[in-house]
């Protein structure tokens, strides 16, 4: 798309500050092996047409991210050292979790589809910090980050990936279907756009019970082209429900870039079809995410209806473990890994004297151990018993009714 550069406008939300343009800093070395951050593009595999398209797009996504992204600067007062460290820890936990999950997939311990959240951590983490434990969250199949961020244990999430009885849903769901009623993480769903109407119902429940709660509904850029998405946003707006619609725009739906699938690739602008506020914000900066989300939450809790935020983010890995990922260029991947949200928070913590390198290393080691423990736990846990097979098809059912 030759015209893309002009098309993708950047209306950065969050604070009033002008976005600071980050220069590429080279590859992240602390938060994971650079080889994890994406796959080699193998040009020999590509048609000439493919290469042309990619080159044009690459420029624009990087350009857009440059406009949108800013370094962590003025952190709001309510986020003290504990909170910032908590954010860092959680982002690092998710990253580490995903890295280990990928390894376990390669070892054949995890099967089916596995979609990793690496690179997008700031979105789940920053947004969750702006919510309360009574707020609902719901998302797609790329759901490990959302599960961990609500406080589900690495053990129960990893065990679910392994399909074990100790998994959060007893091995019945797997990677795409994390759930915790207690933590109000109302599930990962595998049908693109399918969770959006459900999120509207969760928000209806919030309004009905009038407890000041809301529902944060996460989905990808590709999902915004599903009919259910459109219907859901309209319905929420008509009913003025407390829904925060969170688009994690990582620029691709599998191998199709947002500019090739979405007639309005500035997704936040689609909010206008529902007279809903729509903003774009920096999804690679956890503080910016927090700020945008806080504003949205205030809007929702005031009874003003739903709110759409488009976070500019990037998945450091291919779509899923079975995706060769050849449709993205190394340059594009390099740029986004250069603004790794975890690394940025580490820099901030150090620059502001809240943590030393050593302290951070200690923290990361603890997280690594937590994830190792989760892996071991998952590995050693028993498979679900065969008697589980017919459990929970129906809540009220008689044995004689099986056909």
């Amino acid at each position, binding site marked *: 798309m030759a015209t893309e550069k002009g098309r993708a406008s950047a209306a950065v939300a969050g604070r009033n500050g002008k976005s600071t343009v980050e220069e590429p800093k080279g590859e992240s070395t602390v938060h994971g092996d650079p080889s994890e951050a994406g796959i080699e593009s193998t040009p020999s595999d590509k048609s000439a047409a493919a290469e042309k398209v990619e080159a044009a797009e690459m420029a624009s996504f990087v350009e857009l991210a440059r406009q949108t992204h800013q370094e962590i600067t003025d952190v709001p007062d309510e986020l003290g050292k504990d909170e910032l460290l908590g954010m860092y820890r959680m982002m690092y936990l998710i990253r580490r979790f995903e890295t280990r999950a990928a390894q376990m997939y390669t070892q054949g311990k995890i099967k089916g589809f596995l979609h990793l959240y690496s690179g997008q951590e700031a979105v789940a983490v920053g947004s969750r910090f702006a919510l309360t434990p009574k707020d609902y969250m719901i998302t797609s199949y790329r759901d490990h980050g959302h599960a961990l961020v609500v406080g589900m244990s690495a053990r129960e999430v990893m065990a679910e990936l392994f399909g074990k009885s100790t998994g959060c849903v007893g091995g019945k*769901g797997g990677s795409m279907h994390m759930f915790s009623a207690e933590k109000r993480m109302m599930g990962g769903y595998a049908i693109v756009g399918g969770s959006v109407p*459900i999120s509207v*119902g969760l928000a209806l429940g919030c309004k*009905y019970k009038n407890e000041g709660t809301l529902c944060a509904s996460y989905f990808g850029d590709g999902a915004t082209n599903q009919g259910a998405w459109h219907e859901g946003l309209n319905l929420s707006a008509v009913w003025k429900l407390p829904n925060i619609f969170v688009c994690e725009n990582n620029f691709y739906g599998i191998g199709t870039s947002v500019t090739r699938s979405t007639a309005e690739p500035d997704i936040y602008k689609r909010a206008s079809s529902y007279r809903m506020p729509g903003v774009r914000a920096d999804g690679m900066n956890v503080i910016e995410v927090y700020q945008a989300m806080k504003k949205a939450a205030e809007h929702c809790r005031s009874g003003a209806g739903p709110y759409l935020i488009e976070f500019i983010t990037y998945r450091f890995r291919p779509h899923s473990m079975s995706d060769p990922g050849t449709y993205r260029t190394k340059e594009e991947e390099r740029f986004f890994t250069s603004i790794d949200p975890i690394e940025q928070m580490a820099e901030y913590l150090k620059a502001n004297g809240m943590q030393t390198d050593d302290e951070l290393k200690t923290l990361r080691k603890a997280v690594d151990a937590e994830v190792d423990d989760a892996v071991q736990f998952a590995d050693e846990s028993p498979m679900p018993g065969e008697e589980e097979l017919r*459990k929970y098809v129906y809540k009220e059912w008689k044995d004689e009714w099986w056909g």
Partner: protein
Amino acid sequence: MAEMTYREALNLAFKEEMRRDPDVLLMGEDVALYGGSFKVTKGLLEEFGEKRVLDTPISEAAFVGASIGAAMTGLKPICEFLTVGFALVAMDQIVNHAAKIYYMFNGQVNLPMVLRGPGGGGHQLGSQHGQSIESYFLHCPGLKVVMPATVADAKGLMKAAIRDPDPVFVMEHEGLYGMRGECPDDPEFITPIGKAQVLREGKDVTLIGLSKTTHQCLQAAELLAKDGIDAEVIDLRSLNPMDDATLVESVKKTNRAVVVYEGWRTGGIGAEVASRLMEKAFYYLDAPVVRIGGKDIPAPYAYNLEKLVYPRIEEIVMGAKYALDGSPLIIR
């Protein structure tokens, strides 16, 4: 017992359950201000207010999803399709979400919700409205499906569905809304899900109907009686779970069965009933179970053609006689 219409019985079911349980709410197109396109929800907005009776945009996928989400928070939504055929635009929400959430999430959350609306043919509504698609929902573990044929069951099954902890699809019949009948007054009266009902006892052949075809079976039984054939008539009522025991018991006595349904013959409810009878009563069957289904044709508009696509009483009679003595069964 009070006499009322099937429509009024449904309306009463909503009212009684909404009075009984403040978590019951109802949504759909034109259900509130307009009182329902078929007036089934008349007076609900006035009694329960707009918090509990919600008009929706023409967005079936969204409001089925909204019912699912609301049910997850503990509410008990009743979700109306203006016509059950419109459930097809929400098929993914029903089959992939409503039916699977309880299982997929290992019982952490159940969905006490009702899907409902009128279906069935015979009103010259053409191919896209006139259809009976219960079989799609029969073939969907996690969902229950009931089809009331009588006024009492309109109330009783609807109330059971509202109280049920699982998603239940209540398929009404447009052609029965105006039908009058007796309805128990007791607000605790419900018709249990999973129970068929023998409406007429007989010893020669079992006629199995559902929804409107139950009434056709009763009429066919009258005609058969004139020919000295004593037909038993069973109203299936609950498609899933299905009351195999009642069906089998009847066939053990009559040794013959005819199943009558408006949905397309191929792949319809009749195939499931026939297969179960074969499996559970094979050695009692003296003839193949006869399927009198809707023809495998999109419903045409013209009156004379439309009446040929849905089961007719003379076809049921023919089917019964075929089962009894191999008389010719010619279904055009």
